[in-house]
């Protein structure tokens, strides 16, 4: 199992690309930060409305802003994969497997991301999303949706916090 994972996580081409192009790593960083700001802002604004901030906003049309949060997530996700799989360029020859197994902050970040993803999945599959769609201007969101909004804000803040600490866990 470990050998398989090491093989999958080994990307010599990415490592040499980042080694040969000094702009590669900062480009990943800029993309990561633009993505996280977009994700955190758009999702955070939606969660805050569910919690009662800017209550005059109806929630159904708000949904149309969310794809931009997803786009931010994709930017951050792709650049984050670049960091993880290309780390060997920065820390000579390191395999991402060792980083994932030993870096506590990365582990906490990935757990928080998984929980945030699960939270979003539950929002859609348990029908809370449909309840929220019915929340018009000036109306209060149901308690379940509020709990999910609190979880979402907390988990994404955790992702930012632990994510920024990853270099200290190396």
């Amino acid at each position, binding site marked *: 199992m470990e050998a398989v994972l090491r093989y999958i996580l080994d990307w010599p081409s990415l490592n040499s690309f980042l080694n040969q192009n000094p702009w590669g790593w900062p480009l990943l960083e800029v993309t990561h930060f633009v993505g996280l700001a977009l994700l955190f802002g758009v999702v955070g604004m939606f969660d805050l409305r569910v919690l009662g901030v800017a209550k005059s906003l109806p929630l159904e049309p708000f949904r149309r*802003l969310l794809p931009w949060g997803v786009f931010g997530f994709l930017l951050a996700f792709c650049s984050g994969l670049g960091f993880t799989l290309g780390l060997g360029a920065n820390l000579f020859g390191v395999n991402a497997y060792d980083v994932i197994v030993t870096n506590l902050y990365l582990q906490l970040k990935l757990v928080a991301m998984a929980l945030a993803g699960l939270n979003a999945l539950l929002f859609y599959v348990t029908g809370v999303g449909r309840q929220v769609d019915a929340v018009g201007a000036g109306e209060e969101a149901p308690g379940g949706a509020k709990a999910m909004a609190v979880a979402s804000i907390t988990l994404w803040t955790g992702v930012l916090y632990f994510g*920024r600490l990853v270099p200290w866990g190396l």
Partner: protein
Amino acid sequence: MGFLESLQNSGFATWVRESPSLLAYQLYITLHTIGLGMIVGVSVGVCLRVLGVASALPLAPMEKYLRFMWLGFWISLFSGLVLFILEPGKFLTIPVFYIKLASIVVALVMMSKLSGVIFRGRTAAGAGDAPAGAKGLAVAVILSWFVGILAGRVTAYSPLIQIETTFAVLILAVVLTIGRAIFIRGGSGERAGAPARRSHA
């Protein structure tokens, strides 16, 4: 310079710089990132709405979000000042650091102007299209944050890498913009359908 030097050599700055504690350097760098997420995220979220995303959403109530943008600003400013006094001489001699500060100022000034247009006075907007001039300001705000993040991130690199990275970011941005224009032709149904679904709020 004497004042900055005494700050840099203060017990607090030395502790923040050198302590492995999560309450030292790592607290301020994480706060700076969370603050950035709040200030840029909320500001860009409002700008996207001004540019026509989710245009059925009434614009005026979004003013309530601005306090979270300013909360993010104060968090970033506070943590940024602490990070600055750790090595003031270094930051003051890096040109991109000034570009970063200037773009933050530009973004905030443009955002204040935008707020004036969309939230206050006779032009205050509901659902549908944002008032004239708002879209240009929204684009300016987004571009300023973009420049700010770029300049902030490349501060740690040499000038040559800074320039190379800027070109790489520009090329990536152009590719993404073209991709968006190809895949979401005509800005999708949300814009076309917006005037018909005016909010009754």
